[in-house]
């Protein structure tokens, strides 16, 4: 991926009582574009709130581990 682009995770919810859930990702050079892109790509539901966060700013508190179950 080009160095000037970042991956952003997109979270949204439909109702006040719902938690924000992960709905997808976008790549963008800045936060304004990430938000505008997210809004036009993940428009399948009438979300009441949508947020984007740069993946590089997320840290794992619990890391997904391979399960042998």
């Amino acid at each position: 991926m080009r160095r000037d682009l970042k991956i952003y995770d997109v979270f949204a919810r439909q109702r006040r009582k719902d938690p924000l859930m992960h709905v997808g990702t976008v790549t963008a050079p800045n936060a304004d574009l990430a938000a505008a892109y997210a809004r036009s790509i993940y428009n399948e539901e009438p979300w009441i709130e949508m947020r984007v966060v740069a993946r590089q700013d997320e840290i794992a508190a619990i890391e997904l581990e391979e399960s042998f179950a």
Partner: protein
Amino acid sequence: MPTLTDEALKQKIAAGYLIERPEEMTERYKKALIQILLVQADTELMSAPAYYMAACKAPSINTRLSAYAIIQDELGHAHIAFRLLEDLGMDKEYLVYGRKPHEFKNPYGFDQPLESWVELIVANAFFDRAGIVLLGDPFKHTSYGPWKRALAKVDKEETFHLRHGEVWMKRLCQAGGKIKEEVQRAVDWMFPMGAEWFGLPDHMKRHSDQLEYRLKGYTNDQLRQQWLSAVVPLCESCGVRVPAHFDPEKQQYVLDYPIPVEYDPEKKRWLFDKPISWDQAFERWKRRGPYNEHYVKMIQREYQKFMGLLNGYGQA
């Protein structure tokens, strides 16, 4: 982490395990996944310029709007597939803007010009139905978690495209006369295009990694059957002829011509009396249809120029 063998992976998948990250895959699994995702991505991407071409002939602001909504959805689906490929280590920018036209893996149907509103409608009814059938399969069966989740959105939106196609097809056919004849002409070239979409029949197909890794669950013939069982009754209810019917003995839909047959893309005409081998059909696909270059250019036109502008003073 212990090295994962293909056999062990297959066992886990058979037990219902969902793969979430590249580290959990074998090379072979990854390769098969990339292959199937790339076909999806390219198909969605190249449907957009084809639909756009027809959208410019939309007969009102309302209809143009619905055509644009469909184009937006298709590009959105392509984006999702390319994003998934990016997470598997592929370069999304190169895949969209760097490849040569003939390197795109979309079906032959989206190498064809869609020249009227009627052709857009029939494409919605036939090609989007093919898309729903093909993607409904991994949505239900796939062992790759991120893909399965992403397909929820895709499935929802394709249902609208289909409804758009089917409602409009009925409306156009009810109008009768010249308009219905136009629908018939579109159906005549697009129906066999759709039937061919699903590829080699099962009895000719070698083993498939895509099935064994449960990237998908249905065979080509099963998928083609699903498509026929939606499309043939639609056409019958519209009073439009299609070269296929339901065979009560076999309890399935059968084609009235030997598939595959030769196609004349200039005249948009199938030569039903000229059967060809599947190898010859694949040859035709590889040579690409008449609008392959045009459509790819519609997507890529500005990118190089723009990167030049950005990079003019060494900006990466």
